[in-house]
């Protein structure tokens, strides 16, 4: 009996890239349903029934629909392949921490996206908020830099599903924080980028159009 093809609801260069990439790593052939974040088609009631907060990714698989990229990551790694670390595994605590830490970092990137990309004039981002959020993002990079001192990936034993969670962030972070002071993070990013499954996912994701400039410096304080 063949399984129905999983369907991934996807917005280019968003968190759903994590799922797109993990599916490639696992060799799972999925149908990709593109959504346009600016057109608001995720507010459609049919989509809402799948992803109740109207967000991507959502993954239709095993007869149900999952949302939350971290939950999808854990579920895929538990049910398919060998990229997870099951309960009881000596790296279980590190694996879970890495998955959720990636989301803490992504939440800060999202805050900056909200201020820099989605907030429309005349509304202006608050400069102190940009400063605080950027400082907090740097703090998460400091933590990652230290973690990577002794290992090449999120886990000492090598590549895992947690790297698809963390890795995605590292392609968005440099729009707000330069990676030069973080050599371990930059090397880790290069290591992930070299993976064939990453490149296959990147090709499916298409060119990045979300960010319109190469770097978003914090505007000069007018106060």
């Amino acid at each position: 009996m063949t399984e129905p093809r999983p369907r991934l609801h996807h917005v280019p260069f968003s968190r759903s890239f994590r799922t797109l990439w993990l599916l490639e790593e696992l060799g799972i052939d999925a149908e990709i349903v593109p959504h346009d974040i600016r057109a608001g088609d995720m507010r459609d009631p049919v989509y809402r029934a799948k992803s109740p907060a109207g967000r991507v990714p959502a993954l239709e698989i095993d007869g149900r629909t999952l949302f939350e990229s971290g939950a999808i990551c854990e579920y895929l790694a538990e049910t398919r392949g060998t990229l997870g670390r099951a309960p009881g595994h000596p790296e279980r605590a590190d694996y879970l921490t890495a998955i959720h830490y990636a989301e803490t970092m992504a939440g800060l990137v999202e805050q900056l996206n909200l201020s820099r990309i989605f907030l429309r004039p005349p509304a202006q981002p608050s400069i102190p908020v940009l400063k605080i959020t950027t400082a907090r993002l740097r703090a998460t990079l400091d933590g990652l830099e230290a973690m990577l001192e002794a290992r090449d990936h999120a886990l000492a034993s090598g590549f895992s599903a947690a790297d698809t969670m963390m890795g995605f962030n590292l392609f968005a972070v440099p729009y707000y924080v330069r990676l030069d002071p973080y050599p371990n993070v930059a090397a880790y990013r290069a290591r992930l980028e070299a993976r064939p499954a990453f490149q296959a996912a990147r090709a499916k994701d298409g060119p990045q159009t979300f960010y319109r400039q190469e770097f978003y410096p914090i505007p000069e304080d007018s106060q």
Partner: protein
Amino acid sequence: MIRLHHCPQSRSMRSLWLLNELEVPFEIVLHAFDKSLRDPDYLSLSPAGRVPALEIEGERMFETAAITEYLCERYPAAGMGRAPGEPDRMAWLVWVHFAETISQHVASLTQQHIVLREDWMRSPVMMELEARRLEKCYAAIEARLSTPIENRDYLLTSGFSAADVSVGQAVYMARYFASLDGFPAVADWYARISERPAFRAALPGEDAALIYDRPFYAPWPVAGR
């Protein structure tokens, strides 16, 4: 020995509530919700300077939801987790993760209303936007609890779990910024779970320093409307 690093009313209340539900022995290290979380000693436990952090059998963990998952796996007897392969595993993961999505909006609102020192730093547009996003989160919970067949008492068909603890504590914090009026199933569910002794024991003590010192922080009016 389990040691929880905790600030009253913060996300670490989620770990405290869960530990109470698990009925395992632990001790609490109270922290002030301020710059002391950036002290080098604490950063060695939690590299981004956040609560909770958990010390357990020589492991040091941070990240609330990672702690939730790990504790449920380590102490399965209380039935708070849903192990891989169980029918509700998928839903359990979704809601444990979704609690963090709610909390990200709460963190942004806490910053806007409370952490920023001066009024000119605040953004009424952001306050309103984030409060609306919390309402969208409530709508997602409302839809989950009110199914066409019969209302669920808890987020999972199989009954109370750490998913309710996680989302419930996120709602505890969210209520300071977005009202549950208009979300009757969420309000009923919240009333049900917040009666639990383990929840009550996780509330701030009598003389604890509070993050939220009033019942509600309404968005400020947006200029020019």
